[in-house]
C-alpha cells in the first residue's frame, strides 16, 4: 500500500476512501504549492499579492453573501412549502372526517327511513284490509237498506185497478208493503222502484207516488224477496196484509200473485241526509266542548 495516492492509485482506491481523502479541493493544495514555488523562485518578496488578495477577499465575501442568501431563500421556501403541504393535509383530513360523518348520518337516515317504510307498509296493508272489510260491509248494509241491488227468491204481486173504475190508492199499496215487511220480506220494490227506510207512498191527485221517484202508473207490480214458500201465506196472517186483501176483494182490484225463484231488485237512489248528523250528541262532542255544527 503506497503512502500517498498517486494518480494510478486513484482507480484502486475505494470510492468512500477517495472521497474522504479528497474532501478538501485539491486546487487549494495546487495553488499553495505553486505559490510556494513562486515564492521560492522570487525570494521572500510577495509583490502584488496584497492588492489582488484584498480584491479577492471582497469577491469571496460576495460569494459568501450569495451563499447566505441562498440558504435563507431555500429555508424560507421550504418552510412556506411545508406550511402549504401541512395545510392541505390538515384540510384533507378534515374533509375526510366531515364526509365520513356525513356518510354515517346518511346511513342512519337510510336505516330510519327504511324502518319507517316498513312501518308505513304495514299500516298501508292494515288500512287496505280495513278498507276492503268496510267496503264489503257497506255493500251488505246498502243491500239491506235498499241502496244496493239484490236478487233472490220471492213473490211478485201485481195489483191493477178494478174493471169498474175503482182505482188503487196509495193507502192500499202501503198496506200491502207493510204486510210484506211484516210477513218477512227482505227487500221490496214497486214497479222497479226500491223501497227504503225513507220511502213514503202517497197520492198526488189520482196518481200514486213513492217519494223522490216519478209517479207510478197501474198495474202496480210489487216484488218482494223473501222465503217464497211462506211469504204469501204469512202475508195473509198479518193484520195489514189481511186488510189489503179485504180491501182488494171489496173494491174488486185485480190481484195476481206469482211465485218466482229469482227476482232482481234495483238499488234505490241514494240521497244523503240533509239535516241529520251521524252519531249521537255524545260522540259528536268536540274536545273543546263545542258541538259540531249540524
Amino acid at each position: 500500500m503506497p503512502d500517498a495516492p498517486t494518480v494510478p492509485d486513484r482507480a484502486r482506491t475505494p470510492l468512500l476512501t477517495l472521497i474522504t481523502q479528497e474532501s478538501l479541493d485539491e486546487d487549494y493544495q495546487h495553488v499553495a504549492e505553486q505559490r510556494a514555488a513562486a515564492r521560492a523562485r522570487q525570494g521572500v518578496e510577495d509583490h502584488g499579492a496584497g492588492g489582488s488578495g484584498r480584491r479577492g477577499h471582497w469577491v469571496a465575501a460576495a460569494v459568501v453573501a450569495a451563499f447566505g442568501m441562498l440558504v435563507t431563500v431555500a429555508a424560507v421556501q421550504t418552510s412556506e412549502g411545508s406550511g402549504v403541504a401541512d395545510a392541505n393535509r390538515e384540510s384533507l383530513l378534515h374533509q375526510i372526517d366531515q364526509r365520513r360523518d356525513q356518510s354515517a348520518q346518511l346511513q342512519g337516515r337510510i336505516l330510519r327511513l327504511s324502518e319507517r317504510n316498513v312501518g308505513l307498509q304495514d299500516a298501508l296493508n292494515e288500512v287496505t284490509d280495513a278498507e276492503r272489510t268496510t267496503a264489503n260491509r257497506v255493500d251488505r248494509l246498502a243491500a239491506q237498506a235498499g241502496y244496493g241491488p239484490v236478487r233472490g227468491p220471492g213473490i211478485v204481486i201485481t195489483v191493477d185497478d178494478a174493471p169498474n173504475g175503482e182505482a188503487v190508492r196509495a193507502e192500499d199499496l202501503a198496506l200491502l208493503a207493510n204486510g210484506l215487511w211484516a210477513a218477512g220480506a227482505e227487500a221490496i220494490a214497486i214497479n222497479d222502484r226500491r223501497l227504503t227506510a225513507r220511502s213514503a207512498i202517497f197520492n198526488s191527485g189520482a196518481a200514486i207516488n213513492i217519494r223522490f221517484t216519478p209517479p207510478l202508473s197501474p198495474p202496480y207490480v210489487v216484488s218482494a224477496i223473501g222465503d217464497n214458500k211462506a211469504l204469501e201465506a204469512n202475508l195473509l196472517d198479518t193484520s195489514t196484509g189481511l186488510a189489503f186483501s179485504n180491501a182488494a176483494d171489496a173494491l174488486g182490484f185485480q190481484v195476481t200473485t206469482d211465485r218466482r225463484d229469482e227476482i232482481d231488485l234495483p238499488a234505490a237512489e241514494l240521497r244523503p241526509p240533509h239535516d241529520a248528523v251521524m252519531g249521537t250528541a255524545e260522540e259528536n262532542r268536540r274536545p273543546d266542548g263545542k258541538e259540531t255544527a249540524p
Partner: protein
Amino acid sequence: MIAALGLLVGIVLGVVFQPDIPLWLEPYLPIAVVAALDAVFGGLRAYLDGIFDDKVFVVSFISNVVIAAAIVFLGDKLGVGGQLSTGVIVVLGIRIFSNVAAIRRHIFHA
C-alpha cells in the same frame, strides 16, 4: 471577518427581500444549497490550513452549485432525479463531515 460580514449581509438580504424562486428552479435549490455548503466548509478548512485562495474558493463554489444542479437536472430528465440527488447529497455530506472534522481539529486541537 469580511466573510462573516458577507454571510450576515446575505442572510439579512434573503430575509428582507425573500426573492421568489422560479418554479422550474425550485427542485435544484436544496441540492445547490448543499453543494454551496460543501464549498464554504472547504474554504473554511483551507483558510484554517493557511492555504486559502480566493479564486479557488469562488470557482469551487460556483462550479459546485452548477454541477450539483446539473446532475439533478440530468437525473430528472432520465427519471432518476431522486436517486441522483441522494447520491450527490451522500458524497457532499461525506466531504462536509470530513472538512468539518478537520476544522474541529484546527479549532479545538482534538
